[in-house]
């Protein structure tokens, strides 16, 4: 769905979120507005006092000192309100930003796998980042907008009350400020976005050139890359000039507008003073007010554009926040039984499809006894990984039933169910924290002994000992980077640290260095002893570790038996295995490196 369609279909949802945010902070926003209005009144009074100073203190025979002191006093109030207004406005807006960011994060964390399969990380990132900035911008501007409106109204009323004909002349040009302000925001925004876009493209050229510098140097492709960059630099240049011409077209015009009023004040008002129908102080007052009105009118124009962006951002936010969590706890969860031999798994007549009309599992039946290890083997797309993902309820099945220790999985509390199942994914994801924290991920209060034992079992203890800070070594972007095999072994340690009833290894040894694989195999044998284990693998040696092998074909169990039995009796099994085995043998044909 394009952004445009979204806007059309979801009119109102963005507004709803904005209203909700404002409602939750109505006190703060009301305070901000109150301070803003006080600020406006003080700010508007200063010119009046200056006029009195001129007319009464200088030209008349009143107290000049009194008026000067009043200017300082009222100016002081206005100054304090300037700071207070800023503080309150930003506190509200930043609070809304932070709250919504928390909300988005929490909601995303609860959303089912199927949602995340559909969504790109980058899209969700901008929900939690740029969209919230638009929100924050708008809410920051609310009190200022109130003050601006107030300024415009009050100043206009005073001017008309003082001298309506001069006021008409002075204010005639001011709506232009609003017009130019609005048009400026409308022109500048896309230009600035354009610069950002082109800069991002330039950054891509730089990044891929630096990442591939060996290729660039190896083939002498320097000139080619230089040309690619020159093109991007030209694009950035052109876009930047567009933004500059938007500024050039509007900023001077915005400055010219008040001058129209000022000239009218001088010409018409000056002659009125000469005729004796106007005081000089009033003339100066008109001048100050006309200048004072410019900024508010300009900002009111920009606020319109601001509002449009905020409500579009709100729509995008709502599209995430309104997505219902599909996989939820049962109303009355049944606890898993506390049995001696835990980990019995039953799949009964299970149907499942990711996309409607494209069944992945069809009447899948499988019974795994407590403590048994089963390898699921199948060609790509046979549904073997799906089986592993249904047990912890990452997806809910279409029909049939799945039981763990005699309880239907959808009747168990999600936390309990998932703690009971340790899963190691093919693409290993580790967090930017210490090795220890990564292994203890499922059991944050795990003792050192538990962590070390898990590492040992996963065949990770040896290389962890050699890391700079052993178990305290920080991993990730700013930390130490491990090889694919090492990462997988930490992921295996993470899965067994919580001592799950069922261990699922989804192609968990694929990235392990073949020369080290036998170590893991030995270790895995240890891990799998007396624990229900589902192994999804295509290396024969890993498959052979399981007590029983299930051949999956077209979403059904096609054959079952020990590895040797199937090898001897099943043609299809040999076919499927041949690919994995070939790969396996190839990987072994290697010098130590």
């Amino acid at each position, binding site marked *: 769905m394009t952004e445009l369609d979204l806007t059309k279909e979801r009119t109102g949802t963005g507004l709803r979120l904005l209203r909700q945010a404002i409602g939750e902070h109505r006190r703060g926003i009301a305070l901000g507005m109150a301070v803003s209005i006080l600020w406006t009144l003080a700010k508007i009074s*200063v010119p009046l006092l200056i006029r009195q100073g*001129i007319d009464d203190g200088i030209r008349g025979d009143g107290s*000049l000192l009194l*008026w*000067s002191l009043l*200017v*300082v006093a009222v*100016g*002081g109030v*206005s100054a304090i309100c300037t*700071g207070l207004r*800023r*503080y309150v406005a*930003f506190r509200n807006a930043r609070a809304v930003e932070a709250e919504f*960011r928390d909300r988005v*994060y929490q909601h*995303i*964390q609860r959303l089912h796998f199927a949602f995340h399969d559909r969504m790109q*990380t980058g899209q969700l*990132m901008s929900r939690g980042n740029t969209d919230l900035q638009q929100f924050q911008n708008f809410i920051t501007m609310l009190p200022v907008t109130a003050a601006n409106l107030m300024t415009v109204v009050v100043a206009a009323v005073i001017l008309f009350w003082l001298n309506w004909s001069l006021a008409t002349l002075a204010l005639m040009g001011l709506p232009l400020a609003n017009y130019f302000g609005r048009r400026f925001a409308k022109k500048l925004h896309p230009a600035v976005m354009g610069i950002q876009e082109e800069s991002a493209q*330039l*950054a891509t050229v730089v990044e*891929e*050139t*630096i990442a*591939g*510098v*060996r290729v660039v*140097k*190896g*083939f002498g*492709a*320097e000139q080619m*890359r230089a040309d690619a960059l020159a093109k991007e630099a030209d694009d*950035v240049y052109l876009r*930047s*000039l567009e933004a*500059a011409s938007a500024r*050039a077209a509007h900023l001077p015009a915005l400055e010219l507008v008040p001058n129209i009023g*000022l*000239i009218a004040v001088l010409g018409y008002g*000056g002659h009125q003073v*000469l005729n004796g129908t106007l005081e000089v102080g009033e*003339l100066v007052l008109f001048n*100050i007010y006309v200048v004072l009105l410019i900024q508010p009118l300009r900002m009111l124009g*920009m606020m319109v554009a601001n509002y449009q962006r905020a409500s579009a951002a709100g729509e995008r936010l709502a599209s995430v926040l309104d997505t219902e969590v599909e996989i939820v706890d049962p109303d009355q969860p049944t606890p898993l039984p506390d049995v001696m031999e835990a980990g019995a798994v039953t799949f009964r007549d299970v149907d499942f499809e990711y996309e409607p009309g494209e069944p992945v599992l069809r009447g899948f039946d499988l019974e795994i006894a407590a403590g048994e290890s089963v390898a699921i083997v199948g060609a790509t797309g046979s549904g073997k990984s799906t089986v592993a993902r249904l047990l912890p309820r*990452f997806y809910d099945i279409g029909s049939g039933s799945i039981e763990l220790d005699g309880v239907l999985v959808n009747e168990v509390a999600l936390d309990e169910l998932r*703690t009971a199942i340790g899963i190691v*994914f093919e693409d290993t994801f580790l967090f930017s924290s210490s090795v220890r924290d990564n292994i203890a991920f*499922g059991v944050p209060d795990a003792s050192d002994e538990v962590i070390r034992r898990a590492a040992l079992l996963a065949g990770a203890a040896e290389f962890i000992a050699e890391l700079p800070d052993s178990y305290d070594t920080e991993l990730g972007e700013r930390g130490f980077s491990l090889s694919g095999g090492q990462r997988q072994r930490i992921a295996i340690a993470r899965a067994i640290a919580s001592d799950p009833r069922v261990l699922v290894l989804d192609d968990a040894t694929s990235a392990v260095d073949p020369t080290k694989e036998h170590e893991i*195999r030995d270790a895995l044998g240890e891990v799998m002893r007396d624990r229900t284990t589902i192994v999804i693998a295509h290396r024969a040696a890993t498959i*052979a570790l399981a007590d029983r092998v299930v051949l999956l074909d077209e979403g059904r169990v096609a054959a079952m038996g020990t590895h040797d039995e199937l090898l001897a009796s099943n043609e299809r099994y040999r076919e499927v295995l041949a690919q994995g*085995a070939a*790969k396996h*043998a190839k990987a*072994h*044909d*290697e*010098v130590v*490196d």
Partner: protein
Amino acid sequence: MAGWMSAGVDEDSKLDKGDAQKVVKRTAALLRPYRALVIRAGTLLVVWTGLLVTLPVLFGKAIDAIDRGDSAVLNRSIVAYVVIAVANYFLWRSAIISLARAGEKFLRDLRRRVFDKLLNLSMPFYDREKAGVIVSRMTSDIDSLAELVQFGLQMFLSNILLLFGVAIVLAILSWQLFLVCLVSVPLVTIASRKFQRDSNDAYLRVRDGIGATLSSLQEGLAGVRVIQSYSRTKIESERFHATNYSLFRSHMNSTRIAAWYLPVVDLAGITTTAVALGIGGWMVNDGRLSLGTVVTFVLLLQNLFEPVQQLSQLFNMVQSAAAGLNKLYSLLDEEIEVPEAVAPVELPSRADVLVTGVGFSYATGPPVLRGVDLHIGMGERLALVGPTGAGKSTLAKLIARLYDPTEGSIEYGGIDLRLASRASLRDRIIVVPQEGHIFDGTVRDNIRVARASATDEEIDDALHRIGVHHRFVALPEGIDTEVRERGSRLSAGERQLVSLARAALVDPGVLILDEATSSLDPGTEAVVEAAMDVLMTDRTTIVIAHRLSTAARCDRVGVVDAGMLAELGTHDDLVGLGGRYTALFAAWQGAQEPIGSTGP
């Protein structure tokens, strides 16, 4: 609107006076090509600000004329006012354009210049520096400059001019009243200095907070499946909350700093206005000053304190841009460690390679290679084997002249590589890296990386020659299929094939192949091997072998160990030698398992 708390400099990138002067000098030198534009922009700004300051003066003159009842002077003032206001409209308009042109041209050329320099720097530089840091020179450092050019420079310059202009006009109108008005200068100065420091620190805190929050968000999204699998949703949400609210506090800290500074300057402004009104009014009553002068003072002072507020913020932006420039200039001064000869020589299309007494060590550190002597005949296939870090890759890099040896020499067809022209070197000696790096663009663009001038037919031909043309034609749009960023639409095997097609396009005299360590799917593996065989035919080839089966297919094998060429001979000779290779071979044979065996 832009400007508040939008820039800052780390303590260790701040420039001292000497550095700052150098940066200014160098920038001035780099601006020379656009001298005319710069002068034009500067003149326009000066004239514009000058006229801007005269407007309130004219207004004051008009008031005086009114005060005296002189309508002729009033009318003249009005006409002058109109003329100046309209002139200013055009002046500012062209000032913005000229300044943007000069600034953006400078930036564009700086981007090109820095990138050209990066491309010219040799491999030792890339091995030494982190890729992220190199990229940031071209992105964040230049971007902070761009931000200044786009948002701050004009405001910075015109505010400085405005301050001076107003001060001069006020002093001329009445130096006594001007001196009185200076009363608030100490307060504003102290407050502004404190603000600058505090807001700089606050900005850095906010920047780090944003970074931490975004990477926490990113990690929570990328790891969402693992988090759910381990029922860590709550804990992770709490962790995110902590980071998120730490950012909130940093934001509030920065808001507080602005929230006390703004009123101080506001108050200083209003106090000064009141002083001008009070003292000035008293002087008018005394007959020492005209009413119009007081009005001019009041009007000018009203607009004087906003530039002060803006300047103290812009100062951080300027500082950060200067720090960025300093880093860029030191990059431009970086020495090229593998330079091209003064009188470069062309290399012959086919020749032998002679390595004589070659030793190599990185700038700091022990020797990586010592006393390597090796002759590789024309058309010979040599495999280099040995443990990681033994130096076999380094030897290959030296032969491709990605590095220069610290001792000894490497010759191709009797010509020392240091004398060869860079262009002919890249035509004759090609390194095909382990993993095919893919650039944004089509498959064809990616192959053309090897030779920019290649025609479409030549690219098709290169693919045909290594026997993979049909494979790429089968893609949705054939060879013109866009491979997305980092080649995510091509498999690892296809990326390697692109890499090999590049080599085929060049038709080099020496081919250096770095064999991949990770295994591909069996089908592709065979295709890659076949393509490699084609490429090796009739060509001097050096393979950095990770598999002994590859080594066995070569004419000779060199075992590199601890920086030395330990053994050299045919596969069969070395197996029988009873040395390192014999041991490697035994280990390799032991690891061979028949297909479908039950394992240990």
